[in-house]
């Protein structure tokens, strides 16, 4: 067991050697807190922590920090996603402190989709830092107790620091070096892009293991249940960096429309079951996009229930 560095429940569970389960909730396009609260209620007993996305796909939504606070008020464990697209280093450090003031103990550092994909394609982007530099920033604030400018922080943030990894983006040969780079920057856990191409993911894991990276970082394998053959095709054709193999599309198209959601869940559960045995997979990140009610079923049928109790 490594030494636990933060009060994060997610860190404790991983550190104790359990397969962790995280999920994610996208905030609403409005100010109704019940949307986030209700989504969280659907998954809360079946996951260890809940990611809150940060204006995902650059579509303006209720902010990630406020959503995380709603989860904290419910006694749940949020993972604050933070993109560098919308904030300069002043706002980033300030938001980290704001989140820390509510004892939000997990952060996922990402650069974010380009604003071109969202509802404000004519807006500016910031990218003062990139995702690696955001990881470094949080670690610096936490471990050194200092601002980037060098001044001391009174009550530094105590966050377990995560990063995203996409084993399926190009060029493939630098996908493991990139993981190594994120670890060198200070990433402590990784949540991957949704896995449909299990073989390719396993190859990536093997290359990571060859370098001993699985011992330096907790890798949570990302999965998203497909709702329909249409969704499979859309993800294959339209979502950059997404790898949906032909056989998955075929399998989804091969069943009648009303049975497709069931098939999608089945594929998702099979993926988890296969990867549970994969050395170096420390847990699962289940992104059931606008389908949060299915998370309990996925977790139970994958044999990941009940969740460990840790304080």
């Amino acid at each position, binding site marked *: 067991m490594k030494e636990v560095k933060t009060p994060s429940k997610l860190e404790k569970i991983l550190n104790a050697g359990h397969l962790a389960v995280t999920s994610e909730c996208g905030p609403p396009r409005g100010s109704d807190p019940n949307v986030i609260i209700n989504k969280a209620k659907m998954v809360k007993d079946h996951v260890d922590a809940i990611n809150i996305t940060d204006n995902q796909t650059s579509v303006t939504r209720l902010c990630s920090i406020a959503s995380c606070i709603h989860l904290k008020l419910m006694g749940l464990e949020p993972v604050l996603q933070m993109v560098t*697209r919308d904030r300069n*280093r002043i706002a980033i450090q300030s938001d980290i402190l704001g989140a820390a003031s509510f004892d939000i103990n997990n952060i996922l550092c990402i*650069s*974010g*989709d*380009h604003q*071109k*994909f969202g509802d404000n394609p004519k807006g500016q*982007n910031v*990218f*003062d*830092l*990139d*995702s*690696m*530099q955001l990881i*470094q*920033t949080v670690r610096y604030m936490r471990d050194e107790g200092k601002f*980037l400018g060098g001044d001391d922080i009174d009550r530094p943030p105590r966050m377990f620091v995560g990063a*995203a*990894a*996409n084993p399926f*983006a*190009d*060029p493939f*040969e*630098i996908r493991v*070096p*990139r993981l*190594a*780079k994120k670890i*060198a*920057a200070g990433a402590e856990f990784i949540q991957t*892009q949704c896995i449909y191409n299990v073989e390719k993911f396993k190859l990536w894991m093997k290359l990571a293991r060859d370098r001993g990276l699985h011992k330096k970082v907790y890798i949570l394998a990302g999965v998203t249940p497909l709702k329909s053959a249409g969704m499979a095709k859309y993800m294959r054709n339209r979502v*950059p*960096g997404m790898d949906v193999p032909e056989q998955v599309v075929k399998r989804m198209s091969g069943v009648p429309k009303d049975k497709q959601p069931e098939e999608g869940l089945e594929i998702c559960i099979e993926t988890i079951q296969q990867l549970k045995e994969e050395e170096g997979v420390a847990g699962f990140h289940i992104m059931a996009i606008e389908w949060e009610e299915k998370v309990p079923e996925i977790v139970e049928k994958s044999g990941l229930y009940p969740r460990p109790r840790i304080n």
Partner: protein
Amino acid sequence: MIVAKQKPLEEIIEELQDYTKILVAGCNECVTVCEAGGKKETAILASSLRMYFLNQGKDVKIDEVTLERQCDHEYLEEIRKVIGSYEAILSLACGVGVQFMAEKYFSVPVFPGVDTCFMGVTEERGVWSERCQGCGQCILARTAGICPVSRCAKRLLNGPCGGSTKGKCEIDKELDCAWQIIIDRLKELGKLEQYEQLSPIKDWSTERAGGPRKITREDIRQ
């Protein structure tokens, strides 16, 4: 060079509605190379404007001149003698030239005839693309000579992002992913291990963020 493209004729006409004596001023440098505001474009635009005003039944005098450069006093001074006979100048130089003209001939209305776009190269005749954003602290030594500041859609200093697909950028299937090129170059140079060196947080104060920039060299100043 600085790459620009000519504004739509309607927009230019709109700018010039109130004037009857107009000088169209081209520039012999960058805008000539990118075929937006050189001698040829100046001549064509001037005759289009003449035609338009003639059709409108308006008596508008349109003259043309193409200066060696509009970003140097020396060449801009060449029109001082005649400037008094015009009510407005339409400059086909880049935004730099338009402004220098406006600063020099302070009481004369000056309008831009082109949209100034970027610093870039001629990939082939008719195709120009961006290469530099003048960040004031060049990092090309670390990135195999390819600039992620100007050519990565997210300016990632530690790319590529998860959206890089088959060598193309996530924002546009026609756009090369800068980081794919950086990696290909590193490989070619036998320096792929350099990829794992973390690029530190950049000092953006030498870029636009630091406010308008100025270089003064006392050693050559007169």
